[in-house]
């Protein structure tokens, strides 16, 4: 790979950073590293956010545009045209997994590059039933149950019965079956059945709900898996889609209520340091191999994450595929090194390959070293259902260390008013250690050194989840 050629490909581009906060800052920094100009957006609410300050510092006032909303694709297109951008980076959230947005970016009259997988892949893997069927067609394990909507009551009952019997044979004492509306999403129209005799009434309830809400009476029937670890495989590929590589696994099992991730650890298991009741290394190898197999078969052409659940018995099941860069990409990058290049910035890799540069290295060139832990610092109250806290941050310090990377959109100059429109994320802290024990110890040390205070108009002082993170540090990577 000649550097002149790569320079050419990236040279003529300008990227619209179609996001805010911490991810927007990371994208801008990556652009800076690659020498690509960018345009940034912000809303009136967000004018004091770190990403606005950074954009102003790096690109000047002319690279910054005030829009009415981050959710309005028209605004993004309008700004992209005005700023003569050639590519759009959606970050995560907002339009990251919106295949229509990706399609619009790539199909409009003034075509641009969508930095992410091509829209057809986003659409295909964004559909859970599709993903499940694709996985099964490749022999990738998925949660036992139906892989297509069931419309017939007799068939539904038969499948549910089989799932109950299957669990009994596996020695599960309290077998559970999930009935969900196939057209649903976001936790709507899902019910649990613990008694086979009740199945019929639950099924009818869900079916009628689905018919009313989604005009499609199809339901999915699956085994409900109770006790599992949540693992992810980080995949990166270039536009050829033929040679995907992985950047290891992550374990995201520490979550708040509502299944929001709070602590991520890379790699997913550490069989060298901890004892598991199953062959953890084999599980890691398997899920990586399966994920790559699927990526290869669909011609996956950017970064993405394969999400898995691993049961207490060590069975992996593919849950879904996130066709975007994730919040926690930094923790995987922290433990990886590319031979000859050193540290990895996954966002830079995403931009580089997204714009059409070939990957330039193979799986053998990637080395992993040590353990990374990522904490999400959030203004929320873990004691009352993780309710977000609104107010001003008055103090936000921590003790710097070479093993610590802090990613935050909270500007240096305080106080900072947290915008109310968005997730109350404040910062990501990535900690590195040579093994899990060291990483945990450093994590605890970081949390101890952290001082984060704030006030709001109603006089309540800042709530943060630091204590929750600290308590849970001990739990990570333990089943």
């Amino acid at each position, binding site marked *: 790979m000649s550097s002149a050629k790569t320079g050419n490909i990236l040279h003529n581009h300008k990227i619209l950073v179609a996001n805010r906060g911490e991810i927007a800052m990371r994208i801008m920094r990556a652009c800076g590293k690659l020498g690509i100009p960018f345009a940034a957006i912000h809303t009136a609410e967000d004018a004091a956010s770190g990403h606005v300050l950074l954009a102003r510092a790096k690109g000047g006032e002319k690279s910054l545009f*005030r829009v*009415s909303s981050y959710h309005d694709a*028209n605004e993004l297109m309008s700004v992209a045209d005005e700023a003569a951008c050639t590519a759009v980076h959606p970050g995560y959230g907002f339009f990251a997994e919106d295949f229509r947005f990706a399609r619009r970016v790539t199909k409009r009259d003034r075509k641009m590059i969508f930095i992410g997988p091509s829209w057809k892949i986003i659409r295909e893997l964004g559909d859970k039933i599709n993903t499940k069927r694709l996985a099964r067609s490749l022999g990738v394990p998925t949660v036992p149950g139906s892989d297509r909507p069931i419309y017939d009551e007799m068939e539904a009952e038969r499948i549910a019965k089989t799932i109950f019997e299957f669990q009994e044979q596996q020695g599960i004492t309290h077998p559970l079956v999930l009935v969900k509306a196939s057209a649903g999403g976001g936790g709507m129209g899902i019910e649990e059945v613990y008694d086979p005799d009740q199945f019929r009434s639950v099924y009818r309830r869900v079916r009628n709900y689905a018919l009313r809400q989604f005009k499609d009476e199809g339901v999915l029937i699956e085994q409900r898996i109770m006790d599992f670890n949540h693992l992810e495989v980080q995949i990166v590929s270039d536009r050829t889609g033929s040679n995907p590589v992985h950047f290891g696994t992550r374990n995201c099992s520490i979550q708040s209520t509502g299944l929001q991730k709070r602590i991520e650890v890379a790699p997913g298991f550490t069989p060298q340091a901890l004892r598991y009741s199953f062959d953890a290394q084999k599980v890691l190898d398997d899920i990586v191999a399966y994920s790559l197999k699927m990526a290869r078969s669909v011609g996956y052409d950017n970064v993405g994450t394969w999400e898995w659940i691993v049961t207490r018995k060590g069975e992996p099941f593919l849950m879904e595929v996130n066709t975007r860069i994730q919040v926690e990409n930094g923790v995987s990058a922290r433990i990886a090194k590319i031979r000859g290049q050193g540290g990895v910035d996954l966002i830079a890799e995403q931009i580089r390959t997204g714009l059409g540069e070939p990957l330039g290295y193979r799986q053998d060139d990637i080395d992993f070293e040590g353990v990374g832990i990522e904490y999400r610092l959030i203004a929320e109250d873990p004691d009352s259902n993780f309710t977000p806290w609104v107010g001003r941050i008055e103090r936000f310090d921590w003790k710097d260390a070479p093993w610590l990377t802090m990613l935050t959109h909270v500007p240096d100059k305080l106080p900072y008013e947290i915008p109310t429109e968005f997730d109350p994320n404040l910062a990501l802290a990535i900690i590195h250690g040579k093994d899990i024990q060291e990483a945990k110890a450093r994590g605890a040390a970081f949390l101890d050194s952290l001082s984060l205070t704030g006030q709001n108009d109603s006089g309540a002082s800042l709530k943060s989840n630091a204590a929750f993170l600290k308590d849970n540090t001990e739990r990570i990577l333990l089943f």
Partner: protein
Amino acid sequence: MIDISELLDAIKSSPYREIVVAAPHTGRMSFAALETGMCVHGPQGQWKEMPGTTLGTLEREGNPKPICAPENGEICRIHKELDGGFVEAGAPLVVLRHMLTRDEVQRIILQKTLYLFRAPERAKYYFTPETDKKIRATDAHSVTIRDGMELFIMSRMKREVPLHYAGPDGVIYEIYFKYNENLDAGAPLIGVCPRDHLHVIQDMIARVQTEWTET
């Protein structure tokens, strides 16, 4: 009790309000043939179904949208320097000097007489679905509320929290917030009038109607 005459006099001494018409979103702006000092009208018709004077056109993604005057008034300033160029969302376009109407004066005075239930935090507010339905079906005046009643949904940080009304029992007389609008903490949400005070309010309205002349 409030001295209405005093209030009215205060308002009469400066009966204008400045309205800044800002760009609702980004796009290319072209102004209509208007000059400073010209008078424009707001939405008209029995149901305000006819839009106000077109101040200009904002075109974004091949979709030209008219920007109309929100109220009657006189143009104080047109940002003609933006004509034909790209504007950011929220950029001020036209400034109107609007003479307060009888209704607006009434609202100002009502705000001082009614019990105001205020936003506890900066957030978006909605009525609970049942209340919303009632208000849409008839009007706000018919909705009776009690202390401790679950009346609003407060939406912030992508989370929705129910909000309970605290204050005297009565009817909702005025609503001060719009759909999808971010309110600062302390901004009034609704004006509540206890049932036995209704006649006082009616008297007040009658006085404004007679004493305030619209030009």
